[in-house]
């Protein structure tokens, strides 16, 4: 069983603590993404697992094997680097064969394996090319092939797509996810791109300052963030601050400083009477293109507020608005059918099922 387990990992660079008692388990066959801003400790975690950095404290296990003091070459871990790290003085074949050669695998078998792994990454017939003769995307595939050809217990990918252009990046996301499904290797993936993490992961681990901020399935992380950091990190989030009034099951009523009542989902253990933040995402905001007064005869609906357009930005697909809502701003997307001008008054309705309310204090 190749489960990857980290127990109480601590890593310090001088006075900076890069990993602060990190505990993390990646189950057999799972693809887990470490996501976080630069300096959050995700690369340190990866380097600890791969063996190029010795943690100051704690242990790392693959299955029941403690690998903390085992040198990198004996860990049985496949690695894909951000800069691909293909050896420029070797052909694709030689790059892929190197590890097998060191294991004294017979040449015939090496040939067979190289061919099969190249077909997995869709690069049949590229054996004799040198890395410099390949495009960025192809180099990325070779790097992936080199990491999986030894059938490692664990696969580590360090921001593998960050050097590709946007289109190719999108395509490679799906391919990596597919290859993972097909091979079922326990995989740890590091990225700072949240969409990438969403698409490919079974589980996402959000990190900050060497600590895990949240660990869960992609939709959990997005829709049920447990703290303000995660809520702000995922999606295009703007916050409305207030005090929790009541909690009924999942549902939470927040009173903003303006005195407005805002219903959302209670996340991260908010309790009545405490300060909390409602994480407003553009997709949860519906724009009713008329001021509240125009909806005559009715009391204003729940979670509906009057807002004023502060600025608007045309992006092609949608229009990015900044709305003024009392003393706060929220970001809203509107369709291009009807374009609002700064100063226009509108009514917005925030979907309570897509409005996480998290504790206000940032961790």
């Amino acid at each position: 069983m190749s489960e990857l387990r980290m127990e109480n990992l601590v890593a310090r660079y001088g006075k900076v603590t890069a990993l602060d008692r990190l505990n993390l388990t990646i189950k057999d066959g799972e693809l887990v993404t470490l996501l976080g801003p630069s300096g959050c400790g995700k690369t340190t975690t990866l380097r600890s697992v791969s063996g190029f950095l010795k943690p100051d404290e704690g242990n790392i296990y693959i299955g029941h094997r403690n690998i903390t003091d085992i040198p990198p070459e004996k860990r049985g871990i496949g690695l894909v680097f951000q800069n691909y790290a293909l050896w420029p003085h070797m052909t694709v074949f030689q790059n892929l064969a190197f590890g097998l050669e060191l294991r004294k695998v017979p040449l015939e078998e090496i040939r067979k394996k190289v061919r099969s792994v190249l077909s997995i990454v869709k690069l049949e017939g590229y054996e004799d090319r040198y890395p410099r003769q390949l495009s960025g995307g192809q180099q990325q595939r070779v790097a992936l092939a080199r990491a999986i050809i030894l059938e490692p217990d664990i696969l580590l990918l360090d921001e593998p797509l960050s050097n590709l252009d946007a289109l190719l990046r999108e395509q490679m996301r799906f391919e990596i996810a597919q290859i993972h499904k097909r091979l079922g290797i326990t995989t740890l993936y590091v990225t700072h791109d949240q969409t990438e993490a969403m698409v490919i992961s079974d589980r996402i681990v959000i990190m900050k300052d060497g600590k895990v901020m949240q660990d869960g399935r992609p939709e959990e992380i997005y829709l049920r963030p447990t703290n303000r950091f995660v809520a702000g990190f995922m999606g295009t989030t703007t916050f409305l601050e207030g005090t929790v009034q009541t909690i009924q099951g999942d549902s939470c009523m927040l009173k903003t400083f303006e005195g407005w009542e805002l219903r959302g989902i209670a996340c991260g253990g908010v309790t009545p009477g405490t300060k909390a933040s409602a994480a407003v995402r553009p997709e949860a905001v519906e724009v009713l293109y008329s001021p509240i007064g125009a909806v005559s005869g009715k009391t204003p609906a729940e979670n509906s507020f009057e807002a004023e357009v502060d600025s608007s930005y045309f992006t092609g697909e949608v229009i990015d608005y900044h709305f003024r809502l009392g003393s706060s701003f929220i970001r809203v997307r509107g369709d291009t059918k009807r374009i609002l001008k700064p100063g226009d008054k509108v009514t917005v309705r925030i979907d309570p099922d897509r409005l996480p309310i998290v504790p206000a204090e940032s961790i």
Partner: protein
Amino acid sequence: MQVSISATRKGLTVPSYIMLLAPAVTFMLLMYAYPFLASIVRSFLDKSGAFSFENYLKTIDLYTKDIAFTFTVTIFNTVCTAVLAILIAVYFRIRQNRITTILSAIYKLPLFIPFVVVAQMMNSFLAPHGLLNVALAQLGLIDLKQPLQLFNFAGLSFGFLWKQVPFAVLIMHGGFQMIDNSYIEAARSAGAGMGKVITRVLIPMNKSSILVSLVLVYSQIVGTFTLPYMLIGGKIPTTITVDIAHRVNYFRDFGVANALGVFSYLLVLLTAWYYLKTKLGETK
């Protein structure tokens, strides 16, 4: 528990860089640092090994003129190198035609010629009846009965400039090439003429490579032994390096030789400080 594990973990790893560096560093400590310190210490010791200023008194008595000469030669040639090299490097930067192509191909030649060959070359070229005087006489510029005497400050400077200007140009040229055309175009569109572009944009932007090249030129001229030794030799005035050789070879007087050495250190103190400071800053 965890703490003790971490302590042994760090303690167990013998840093491999110590093994890798040890041979070269040991060599440098023995063959460079020790002689360097010894040269300073021994300059303060008399023949019996007691502390004294005897060597310095003797040095000042005998060689003040030579120290001044060395300093003058060095300053003069550094300044000339600066002017010539900046002119040539700027010229290479702003003009690209067949002439600059030819020039930039040949100017590096002296750079690769060892000082001992340069010395011999100058020795024959600048001699009273050498090629230069003969050629000038052919042109009717001088009378061969009174040829130019060049085994002195003038000839020495010609030799130094011949070798050092290409070196300075090479470094400066690299720096000037790094300056994007857009900076020049921006200055021109702001109304600067070519002169202003050179003095206000190109030279200030390339300040560091200009300074480093001149610092290296300066300290090399102070330390060069071959050229003055073969060109001027024991004539008065001569350079510190020649005096050191004479002190050692003719008198086996290491004390005064070391005192002279310390004077040559003092001459480069400022440039050495600047060089070490920038180089150590770069590697960090």
